[in-house]
């Protein structure tokens, strides 16, 4: 398997691969987002308890799920970067971090907007909200640490190490609604049991989650391409490409 994977550690290959994937990913992501959100916002029945204001779920839940999913992707990249010393993996940690930070911020802001009509307050210090806020701080810490060194590579490695340490927060966020009985409701979608959400609302939600995921991949491809060019700017293949155009 390593023989098969090894060419993908080469920056040039990854650069062209990302370039090939990006247009597909971004157009698929935007289509799915439009489909999921328009379906969810305009064509699903209102909730029997929360009326129409539950519809923010189609932005809140996908961004919250992807804030954690993006972090685990970043941590896996960080692990690969530190264990096998793959440079592309280091750069992808830095490419992923701001995307994840934005998703976390979206999840927090939409959650606040949802909490105001439902709980009557913008913010409560409940376990899930607090741990999601810590996740945002961890993302910001990774970004800040990577920029704090004069040597860019040391910064990338230090940020990778911090990303791995922060993984400890993921299970805490995920299970916080089960461990502590707090204001935030439990999960509506589970893999093992029948979901507690009606199918008419479930499908647009699943499409929105997929859309957020695909858009994340597209943005990371774009950022990774830029990072590769920035770090490899003195290599022959970049110079040849720049001359060719």
């Amino acid at each position, binding site marked *: 398997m390593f023989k098969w994977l090894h060419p993908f550690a080469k920056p040039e290959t990854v650069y062209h691969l990302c370039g090939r994937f990006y247009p597909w990913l971004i157009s698929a992501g935007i289509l799915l987002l439009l489909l999921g959100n328009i379906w969810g916002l305009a064509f699903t029945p209102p909730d029997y308890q929360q009326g129409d204001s539950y519809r923010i779920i189609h932005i809140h839940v996908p961004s919250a799920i992807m804030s954690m999913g993006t972090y685990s992707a970043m941590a896996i990249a960080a692990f690969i970067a530190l264990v096998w010393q793959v440079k592309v993996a280091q750069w992808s940690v830095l490419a992923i971090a701001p995307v994840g930070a934005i998703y976390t911020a979206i999840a927090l802001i939409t959650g606040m907007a949802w909490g105001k009509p439902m709980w009557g307050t913008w913010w409560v210090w409940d376990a899930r909200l607090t741990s999601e806020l810590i996740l945002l701080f961890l993302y910001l810490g990774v970004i800040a640490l990577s920029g704090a060194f004069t040597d860019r590579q040391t910064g990338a490695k230090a940020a990778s190490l911090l990303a791995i*340490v922060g993984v400890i927060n993921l299970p805490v966020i995920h299970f916080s609604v089960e461990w502590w009985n707090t204001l935030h409701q439990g999960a509506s979608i589970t893999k093992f049991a029948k979901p507690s959400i009606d199918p008419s609302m479930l499908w647009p939600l699943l499409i929105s989650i997929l859309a957020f995921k695909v858009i994340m991949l597209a943005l990371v491809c774009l950022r990774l391409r830029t990072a590769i060019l920035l770090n490899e700017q003195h290599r022959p293949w970049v110079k040849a490409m720049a001359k060719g155009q």
Partner: protein
Amino acid sequence: MVVLVSFIQRELRLLARQKADWLNPLLFFVIVLSLFPLGVGPEANLLRIMAPGIVWIAALLSVLLAAERLFKDDYRNGVIEQLVAARQPLLSFVLAKLLTNWLSTGLPLVLLSPVVALLLNIETAGFVAMLLTLLLGTPLLSLLSVMGAALTVSADKGGILLALLILPLYIPLLIFASAAMEAAAMNMPYHGQLAIMLAMLLFAMALIPMAVISALKLNVS
């Protein structure tokens, strides 16, 4: 083992000669504590309610203050570089750092706790809980801050960055420690919170030294 003992002796000697390194954070702890009654008013009931949070926030900040200089001198002198270059296992160096860091910042906080209890009108039950949470919590604070210091040792803007990295990781500890002290103040059992703090401490003890070693290595490479 011999190496570990000699590293510990070296750290203790350094601490004995640079008293400001560990006395200033302690002074800072006491000053922060005395600022709260001045800021929110000296009413005894109010202070008793706020005491858990005040004690733990002051402890977090003073440990953080002490952490900043932890590896700086060794890095500038080239000690860390020499240790990495000599292919010596860094574990005993890191363990000595951790132990002496706790002895110089965590333990004095535990010893100061009776004074703190007097200042903030904490009663006996609350005092016992504070003592226990400080005993379990300060080693974890030391572990996390040593890791933060190791990560940022060669960074340009170490101090403020260290706070940004480490304070989010302190939050779970802060939650459980002040929950335990609040429960004790209301005469409720708080073994659960103490058990979770102990679990976090053991987990960190097993894993953080490895993270510290690799952080030091990547800072001198």
